[in-house]
């Protein structure tokens, strides 16, 4: 008997604000430790917080992007607990009246409902050495958006897919830079199985980590149930190296938070203007775009998903199509050759690429030739210049027949194989002839000539 697990996630997203949430310290990653600090984010006594309007705008945009209901007025609370990375002894967060309620993220395994979205400040970063712990307060006070899902996820895989889609949406909306390796998105997971205790897993900072930790935990809990043991409600952490979750705190040792309405900050009022501004900046969400690409351009779901990975890629694709290229041709090229080279600014203009792809489409250029042309275009040549340099496809029958005869004569063994029934040897001849022509031979014509040449000799 398998029981459905109940999984909920709390995702902490670093907002892409230039300054911290309550002071003007910069948020650049990788600065020397404790070089981006001031009395406010160090929590010095007497320093007071001032809300960063850019962070608020990004938070509202994020909430709207996820379809959440943004409150006209929300409030800040102090969440008290002792930890060395928390210089004030409390974290300024939103407890009773969060920024937004609701929202949803569609995934291929079903929609994930969101409970609430709120703004809070990040803590400092601890680095543990052999005999000491160092604290870097550069991260202290950075703006976070916490997104809490309903306990509606059905498995480890869905959790990971959800996080990937969420990341894509927030990067689209310009709310977060999505750099996981820099800690831009961090996650805690809650999981219970068939009425067992609720287990919280903390410190998950990669999506694969979330999936692995949840899979491990599901396995651990179902085994415990199968053996008749009770699963206790507790807090565990994911040990990446040991590939296992470990107990952090049992219920008796539960962290004793207490909250106090933040007296230093008035309620956060989100007026119609701010809402309009946030909504105005909002792009089409990736899931909407993906569906539109499938519906309007007739692309496969895989191609739509690939092309909507980033807004830049999706926009580029659409511009190439708008410039007269067939959608499927553009998709294939962009997901193949186009995805290997540079991104964004390094790419040729959409119109130029469309010219190249038209040549390909109409058979005046072989795929190999197109690669060569594209490579030249990346160095700054226009499509026309590059096409001229590479030369158009060779359709001259006499030349191709000569080429075919040479290739066949040079490879008697392959010829024998072909005649012996190994039709795959034809591919070998095509490849060899293609190479000999510098990729310029017309592939279909070449094939026809080769087949007739090989069969003629047989007779």
């Amino acid at each position, binding site marked *: 008997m398998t029981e459905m697990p109940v999984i909920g996630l709390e995702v902490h997203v670093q907002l892409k604000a230039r300054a911290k949430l309550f002071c003007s310290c910069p948020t650049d990653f990788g600065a020397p430790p404790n070089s981006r600090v001031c*009395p406010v984010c160090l929590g010095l*006594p*007497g320093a*007071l*917080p001032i809300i960063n309007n850019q962070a608020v705008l990004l938070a509202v945009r994020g909430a709207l992007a996820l379809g959440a209901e943004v409150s006209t007025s929300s409030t800040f609370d*102090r969440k008290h607990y*002792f930890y060395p990375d928390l210089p004030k002894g*409390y974290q300024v967060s939103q407890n009773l009246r969060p920024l937004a309620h609701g929202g949803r993220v569609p995934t291929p395994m079903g929609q994930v409902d969101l409970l609430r979205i709120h703004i809070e400040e990040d803590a400092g970063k601890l680095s543990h050495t052999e005999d000491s712990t160092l604290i870097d307060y550069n991260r202290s006070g950075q703006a976070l958006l916490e997104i809490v899902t309903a306990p509606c996820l059905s498995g480890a895989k869905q959790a990971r897919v959800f996080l990937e889609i969420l990341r894509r949406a927030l990067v689209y909306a310009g709310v977060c830079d999505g750099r996981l390796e820099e800690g831009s998105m961090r996650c805690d997971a809650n999981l219970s199985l068939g009425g067992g205790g609720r287990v919280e897993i903390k410190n998950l900072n990669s999506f694969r980590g979330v999936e692995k930790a949840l899979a491990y935990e599901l396995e651990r809990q179902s085994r415990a149930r199968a053996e008749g043991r009770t699963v206790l409600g507790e807090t565990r952490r994911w040990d990446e190296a040991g590939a296992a979750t470990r107990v952090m705190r049992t219920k008796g040792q539960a962290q004793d938070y*207490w*909250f106090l309405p933040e007296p230093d900050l008035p309620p956060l009022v989100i007026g119609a203007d701010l809402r309009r501004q946030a909504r105005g900046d909002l792009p089409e969400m990736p899931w909407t775009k993906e569906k539109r690409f499938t519906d309007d351009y007739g692309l496969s779901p895989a191609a739509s998903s690939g092309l909507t990975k980033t807004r830049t890629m999706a926009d580029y694709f659409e511009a190439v199509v708008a410039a007269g290229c067939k959608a499927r041709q553009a998709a294939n090229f962009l997901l193949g050759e186009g995805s290997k080279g540079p991104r964004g600014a390094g790419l040729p203009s959409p119109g130029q690429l469309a010219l190249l792809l038209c040549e390909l489409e109409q058979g005046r250029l072989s795929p190999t030739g197109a690669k060569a042309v594209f490579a030249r275009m990346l160095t700054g040549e226009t499509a026309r210049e590059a096409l001229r340099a590479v030369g158009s496809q060779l359709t001259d029958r006499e030349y191709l027949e000569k080429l075919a005869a040479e290739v066949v004569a040079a490879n008697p063994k392959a010829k024998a194989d072909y005649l012996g029934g190994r039709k795959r040897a034809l591919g070998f001849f095509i490849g060899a002839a293609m190479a000999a022509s510098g990729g310029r031979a017309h592939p279909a014509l070449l094939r026809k000539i080769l087949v007739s040449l090989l069969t003629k000799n047989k007779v």
Partner: protein
Amino acid sequence: MARGLAAGEISSRELTEDFLRRSERWQRTLNAYIEITGDRALATAKRIDALRCRGEKLGPLAGIPMALKDNISTRGVATTCASRVLAGYIPPYDAAVVEKLGDCPLLGKANLDEFAMGSSNSTSAYGPACNPWDPARSPGGSSGGSAALVAAGCAPFSLGTDTGGSVRQPAAFCGVTGFKPSYGRVSRWGLLPLAPSLDQVGVLTPSVEDCALVLQEIAGHDSRDATSAGMSVPDYRAALGTEVSGLKIGLCPEVLADCSRGVGSALAEAARELEKGGGQIISVSLPFLEEAMGAYLLIASAEAASSLARYDGVAYGYRPLSPTLAEMYLGSRVFGPEVLRRLLLGVCSQGKGGGNYELGQRVRRAIVSRLDALFGQVDLLLLPVVSHPAFRLDEEPDPLAMHYNDLYSIPANLAGLPALALPCGFSEGLPLSLQLMAPRFREDLLLAAGSWWQRRTDWHHRRPREVCS
């Protein structure tokens, strides 16, 4: 003093040296300073004298020395809050009020109750400050040092802070003028918090006129304090010469009846004076004073527990050399008993949904609306500051009774109102004070009535004789 400086009759350096000498003489008796910062004061004084020599335009208070309560951050000068928990803490930045008064030589940091929790100045880790009228008595608290220094003539003015009467009660015990502005009128940037929703910087001076000068300098919006008021600051000096005729002044007979005879009769006399001056005394009822004190205790202790949560004994102050982390944590627990009492009350009264803090806030909102209604009928409220004169340090009331020192002050903090303590008599050689309270941001009304009062009386001119120890 300001005129003398401006006219070049006296230099800031001479003035500062004079006050420093007096401060040194009194220090052994009063213990009103935690630190005297003579070098810094003289450096500022010399700078101002040089500027004045060059004919630079200077502010009205430039060159006039001052003392600051030691919970106001001063860059480069230890700020202790009278607690061992902050021993050795030297702020890297100035409070907003210190910036605004940057041209005033800083004589020193004044003693206070530990973390401003108290009404006696006896909870200070640096020993109690004493009352210059009788060194066996308390100067009041928590701004006891600030009040004692002005009363003893050691400082021309000082700043204190008022969370539940902490400027007004010591002003009353020491016979000086004490002003608590409206919440939001003066920036709290750099003020070490006790209860952020109640705290306000206040002014202690010999007279209402001086008070107006200082208030003018420190009032105004500060973009670093989200609770600071955006409205512009009127010219307070304009209010000084005006009359009280036509003002409606509320007085609560039950409150008078609860006061010690000296305070009660001094207030009744003040009411008669105000009537003679054309003011109209209106009998009002204040049935919520006890509830206000209850709400205050719930709110202030919870906010204090939060404000002080950062003092884990590691980042700040006294930290013993201990073999283990646990011993280090335990060994650095050096809060005094009054602070511990309030922190425990603050933390223990927290429930799931905000607990007693929310209860306190509900009562607070009710009291605010009662006061709003009251100020629809009257322009000012006349109250005692405390029901009795300064108590002896060896007869200190128990902790709960101590809170009654603030019974008449607390409503102004809960509702963010401005209030003024004014000397109004003496009883057995100890000063008595009255309190005036006004609607929010009507500092001008208080200054008008206060200056009128001080034109009619000379209580504020009386000074204690210097006691040499």
